């Protein structure tokens, strides 16, 4: 029983980290209707720089690095959108083209990290990374709790920005009806750049959080990008709330599945759920059904 509770808590904590990464992915998809295959690679990049190296060089705490990474990666994402993505958005094959170009991007990020900073797995060592609270048999890691708090704050901020500010509303409107927005004076180019930058920034900060409790290597993103996609599909493409719920569900499934199957098979359970979802509810839990034509 304790074991199950431990796994449930663990699942919720990990799930919240997934939720942050997935929120960025779903924001980009919702606004621009593209899948950013390099999404997790940006998070991995943030795990190295600033998180790992800032700690190594100047002893800067990873949670401070997360704050630093927000503006840094926002600009990075904005530039990537302006220089690469926007060039192919107008084509009639833009859906697959953007997928392919972002795959190229993820290859570049991963392998440049490999060449520059070697493929050795890295871990973050801070006082809180090893400390735990004990509740009976249930152990809770400090770093994971801090990460979860950071994640909640981040998602709340994103949610407020999208729903309460004028610019955020512009982004939401553009995701519903880009053409109409263009006529109403919304600068679509700016909206797309900002949406992509915002998605990347949130994800990068999420990566910084995750780095505090997970070892990582240059190719760590390969394993999670598909899980993020599963979360986004499960929650309904484009829905931030859906990403949070989907992230928590997938986190819990991943951890709890170890009760019945081997640890090495936990992602098999995740993908099995994904397939069931594709079969029976392809629009996701919170998604709306698309019209035929």
């Amino acid at each position: 029983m304790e074991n199950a509770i431990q796994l449930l808590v663990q699942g919720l904590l990990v799930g919240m980290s997934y939720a942050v990464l997935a929120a960025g992915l779903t924001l980009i998809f919702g606004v621009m209707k593209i899948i950013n295959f390099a999404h997790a690679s940006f998070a991995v990049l943030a795990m190295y720089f600033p998180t790992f190296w800032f700690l190594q060089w100047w002893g800067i705490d990873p949670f401070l690095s997360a704050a630093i990474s927000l503006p840094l990666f926002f600009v990075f994402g904005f530039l990537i959108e302006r220089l690469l993505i926007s060039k192919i958005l107008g084509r009639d094959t833009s859906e697959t083209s953007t997928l392919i170009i972002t795959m190229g991007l993820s290859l570049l990020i991963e392998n440049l990290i490999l060449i520059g900073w070697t493929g050795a797995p890295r871990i973050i060592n801070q006082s809180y990374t090893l400390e735990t609270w004990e509740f009976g048999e249930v152990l809770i890691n400090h770093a994971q709790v801090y990460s979860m708090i950071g994640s909640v704050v981040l998602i709340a901020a994103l949610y407020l920005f999208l729903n309460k500010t004028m610019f955020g509303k512009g982004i939401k409107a553009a995701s519903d009806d880009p053409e109409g927005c263009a006529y109403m004076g919304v600068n679509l180019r700016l909206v797309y750049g900002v949406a992509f930058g915002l998605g990347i920034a949130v994800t990068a900060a999420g990566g910084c959080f995750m780095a505090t409790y997970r070892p990582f290597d240059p190719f760590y993103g390969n394993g999670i990008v598909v899980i993020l996609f599963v979360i986004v599909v499960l929650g309904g493409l484009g829905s931030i709330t859906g990403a949070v719920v989907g992230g928590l569900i997938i986190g819990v499934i991943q951890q709890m599945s170890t009760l019945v199957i081997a640890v090495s098979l936990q992602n098999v359970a995740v993908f099995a759920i994904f397939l069931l979802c594709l079969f029976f509810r392809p629009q996701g839990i919170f998604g709306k059904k698309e019209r035929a034509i």
Partner: protein
Amino acid sequence: MSAPGKRSRVDYIAILAVCFLTLVLSWLVGPDRYVQRLILLVVLWASMSSGFNLISGYGGQVVFGYMVFVGTGSYTTVLLFKAFKLSPWIGMWVGAVLAILIAFIIGLPTLRLRGHYFAVATIAFPLMAFPVLNHLGFEEVTIPFTGEGLSSFQFRDLRYYVLIAVVLLGIVLVLIKKIEGARLGFALNALKQNETAAEGMGIDTFRAKMIAFMVSAAIGAIGGVIYAFSLLYVLTTHAVFGLFIIVRILSITIVGGFGTLWGPVIAAAILVPVGEFLTAQFGARAPGIQDVVYGIALVLCMLYLPDGIWGRMLKALHKHGPADENQSIPAPALAGTPGDPASAVVAALRAEATASLSLRHASPEVVNNKENDPLLRIKNVSKYFGGVKAIDGLSVNVPFGKLVGIIGPNGAGKTTLFNVINGYMEPEKGKLLFDDVDTTSMKPNRLCKLGVGRTFQVPQIFRHMSVVENIMVGAFAKTRDADEAFAIAENVARQMGLSKRSTHLAAGLTMWEIKMVEISRALATKPQLLLLDEPMSGLNLEETDRIGAIIRAIADRGITIIVIEHVVQSLVKIADVMVALDHGQKVAEGTPQEVIEHPEVIEAYLGAKWRKRYAGR
């Protein structure tokens, strides 16, 4: 593509030449392992990329999880070889069949998804296979060396493997070439550009995608077998299920040209040696250098060369092509009729009409004794969108051989009615009987084959196909034979006055020509019932009259037609029967004159005030 046959023969000769020259080269350089390995890698990546290209390039469904087939083929064959001493020659077919089966299972849920959805969804499968195989203890499987020999598929001299791989490449290229010119190729090309229109033209898009997917899977599996036996001593899950496989294949296909025959071959011959050279030179210091090159190639290609190397060359060729071919194609329908081409179209259609009328009495397949019976019965049909009743308990009988005009203000449910008749939407209530067959929940492609043709309010042509290819897609609804489809398409194009433009890309046509292509494509499906959704919108007054005459001439040919239209006057001139809709309900039905004088129709169009004024007159 012009007349099928001419260019294709060049391609077949080229395939033969490339394979032969590769073998000669391989044999001449001697058994040096480094060089032979390089040749082998080029040929294998070219083969597997070509297999991937079939579903992803030609069919537009990018399979990011393609390595699941490479892995399935190699693992099945190696394990069977190891456990049961089963010859890889047999094992590879077991692997291929298993790969096809897996493709079917993967395709069942995912091929119904939108393109990019599908791409990422498929990647989940190798990611599932990976941990499962590792868990079962197959992370590393040494391939036992049982002595050199043909039956054990083991040779010390790599040139034998080159020979086998070249044979595979040759077969794959010939197969793709065959598919390119056949019905399946047209279906894939059509559905890649516009799935909605493809369904309406009688293409079972799901089935076409599935067939291409399964063929692709088999090619990947067999490529994987050769790869494992020739170049790996130890088979690992990473080596055949790893992400790097799809990275190579995708880069090669994109750089060479998505959906082109020669693209993957050319790109493999460039990228593979470059990558191998860089790894050999800098691999120790910069282990990821090869993938950096592939990453840069992908990004640059998507930005500056989206058609790929070979795709770009084909486009350059095509630019010069049509001009010469133009002169060689005579336009018989237009000969002797100076002036208005549309009247020539009408004349051509009328001539056909008299012929087909006499034919109808002669040939048994078109004899219909129920000529006074309705061809289409719409029985109490309702279609809702949430709370909105787009169609509300509508019943209409469409008489055989008549031209029925449906009018109604915006939002009256006209296009929804077409979508319901045509199978794009299933009604919530009611029944549809076409030629006494219940078609209520039939898919558009089945309906097209039964004899329902359709044009769209916003024209849905295949922009990257020529005019004649567009029409051929329609013709394939009733024939499997490409030559016959070509003949039908040419014939329809001539009648519709499109001969001059038949080799032009549809993307560059005028609105009038686009409308003609859409009608031609629908006619090529040999419909009994033709649904025309606002054929006159976007045309000027004079063109409106012309298209009216053409529609009338088609109806005179014995084809039942339903036209939706805003422009009531033009419709009044040509329709036999008219139906007026408002708020999803029928407000009037009868001869055109009766309908336009019907008070409720006047109210629906002009408001209650006009109704009173009209009634008081």
